[in-house]
């Protein structure tokens, strides 16, 4: 059973050779195609859309969400969810900003501290879910409150201004290497490493196995709890990365930074084609989902639509993405059943 579950997600196209399942597996390509078409249309109305400076700005901002979305996708593939991502990002962002403002650490050490803090927060989630056996949605709803509360407790009404950060710290948000913004490079590195690990390592395959059929995975002797714990820890680490980038991007940080981001992160994961009940999806999909949402947001503003429309359109995009998933899955199931009947 586990085998069929795993192969269905991994090699649906290979074994069934159906164009529909190809489309289902090529969510990344479909999203890119839509972006290209939309980009063309938007640039007719708003020529500044396709300028390198605008595109790199959009991509930099989307990269922050993409990195968090990669962590979220990892957790979602194991059939869990992490609602505390935004609170981890916010807490890391504030802690990094405040140690920099007080000159407690220099920039590299502060960044390392931020990543370490993210990892620890993620491990706390992992312990609550695996050792204390609290369902992930409840556990991370709880830690969302707790981490955000701690953030407020530390920050109070204090706000770290841009001037409080060491000179040059926020440059990374605007700098690029070989024309590619640094944030995008960071996101690319995260996606590439993550994808290789998921595709080609024992751990990666176990992540999918745990998500597609937990009972079967347990029977096969896969250490599910360890896998889930690791997924949550990595999600925390990546939220830490996103939190550090958040400081560089926005410069001004207080106790409410990154509030509401979890919506974008989960939306990116869903739009990127990761099944919310685990077992299938790719990290690249989640990252491209984030880029897609950021791209739409920017396009709408440039076309002159008020940003009040943004939320509504996000909602529609999520609904369309999940409906498309369900439709395609149903068609595949029907086609498979028909072929078996023959």
């Amino acid at each position, binding site marked *: 059973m586990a085998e069929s579950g795993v192969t269905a997600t991994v090699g649906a196209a290979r074994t069934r050779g159906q164009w529909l399942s190809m489309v289902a597996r090529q969510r990344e390509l479909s999203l890119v195609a839509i972006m290209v078409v939309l980009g063309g249309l938007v640039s007719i109305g708003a020529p500044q859309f396709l300028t390198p400076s605008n595109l790199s700005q959009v991509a930099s901002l989307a990269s922050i969400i993409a990195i968090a979305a990669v962590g979220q996708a990892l957790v979602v593939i194991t059939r869990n969810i992490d609602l505390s991502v935004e609170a981890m990002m916010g807490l890391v962002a504030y802690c990094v900003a405040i140690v920099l403002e007080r000159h407690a650490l220099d920039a590299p050490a502060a960044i390392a501290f931020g990543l370490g803090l993210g990892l620890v927060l993620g491990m706390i989630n992992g312990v609550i879910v695996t050792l204390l056996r609290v369902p992930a949605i409840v556990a991370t709803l709880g830690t969302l409150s707790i981490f955000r509360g701690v953030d407020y407790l530390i920050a109070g009404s204090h706000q770290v201004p841009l001037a409080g950060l060491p000179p040059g710290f926020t440059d990374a948000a605007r700098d690029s290497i070989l024309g590619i913004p640094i944030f995008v490079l960071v996101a690319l590195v995260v996606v590439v490493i993550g994808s290789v690990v998921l595709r080609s390592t024992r751990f990666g395959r176990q992540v999918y196995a745990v998500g597609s059929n937990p009972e079967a995975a347990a029977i096969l002797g896969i250490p599910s709890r360890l896998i889930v714990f690791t997924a949550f820890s990595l999600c925390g680490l990546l939220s830490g990365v996103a939190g550090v980038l958040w400081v560089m991007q926005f410069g001004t940080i207080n106790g409410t930074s990154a509030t509401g981001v979890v919506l974008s992160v989960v939306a990116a994961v869903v739009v990127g084609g990761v099944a919310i009940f685990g077992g299938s999806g790719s990290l690249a999909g989640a990252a491209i989902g984030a880029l897609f949402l950021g791209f739409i947001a920017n396009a709408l503003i440039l076309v002159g639509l008020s940003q009040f429309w943004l939320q509504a359109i996000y*909602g529609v995009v999520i609904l369309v993405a999940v409906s498309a998933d369900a439709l395609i899955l149903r068609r595949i199931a029907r086609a498979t059943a028909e072929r078996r009947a023959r």
Partner: protein
Amino acid sequence: MSAVVAPVNGQLQWARLLARWETVLVVAILGLVALGASLSPFFLTPGNFSNLVAALMEVAIMALPMTLIIVAAEIDLSVESMAGLASAILGFLWAAGVPLWIGIPVVLVVGALGGLMNGLLVARGGLPSLVVTLGTLALFRGLALIVLGPRGVSDFPAAFTELGFGHVPGTLIPWPFVVFVLLALLLGILLHRTWVGRQVYAIGKNAGTARFSGVRVTRVRVGLFVLSGLIASLAGIILTSRLSSARADAGSGMTLTVVTVVLLGGVNIFGGSGTIPGVALAVIAVAVMQNALRLASVTVEVQSIALGLLLILSVVIPTFAHQAKSALDRVGGRRPPADSTAHGEGAPS
């Protein structure tokens, strides 16, 4: 099931009563009241009680249909946005000169329609409610912003704002509390005393089995989401009235508290179990806790730490109490092992 394994001796019966989540909540409430009373002489005054209750009523009202939805193994994250959309439409209509006796029914209809949309996508479309209502969480909030924009509408008549922060004449009972009690009675009876309620539990335990047993799963699910949308829009009206201002961002962030209260009330996030009295007690517990912490001059933001801890503990404690109990039973040898496995967690869900 409890009838089948009803213990013969009174001692075990006590243990069972103590082990009920509702009992734990009552003890927690008494403890918090004692704490509050020791912190401030104002804690036990009627005026304080009135404030304590009023601030939480929109959350409490939305928690009632959420209880039914989570018992049916679904979730509705869109309630806070529906409350915001209700507030925005009400404000928009009022500002456009539409009288409230038309505006309020319109808002309630919009709420029911929004719920219907969620329900059809989930029950008919077979989509996961977590994702669908995440989508409508964004969509409804977006519509609220489109309808009202960033402005606030606040010139509502006194009779309307009286509904939000007025009291029942001659008492200190706020009107929203009356609404909550009425709805709690209504939904409590629906869930615990009617066949509809039994069907909700059946769907939450095992939707497939329920369907084969003749439960109209789709219809019940759609009905629950319509109810949730309707009551969320009612909560939005009450919120507008209490703040005497209609805003598109009304209710932001409330869903988390609503879900937290429901889960604190002992409702299983995976469906199939939970009670309205439990959730009502959780509402009181949270209200008392927030009030006690406020008197101890803990800010609202930091109170979220306590709320989050409570939420996690509300799952951890019963799990470990259950494990400890079965371990004790095994050591004591009071039950044959077959019995303990039959009621353990080992049973496939």
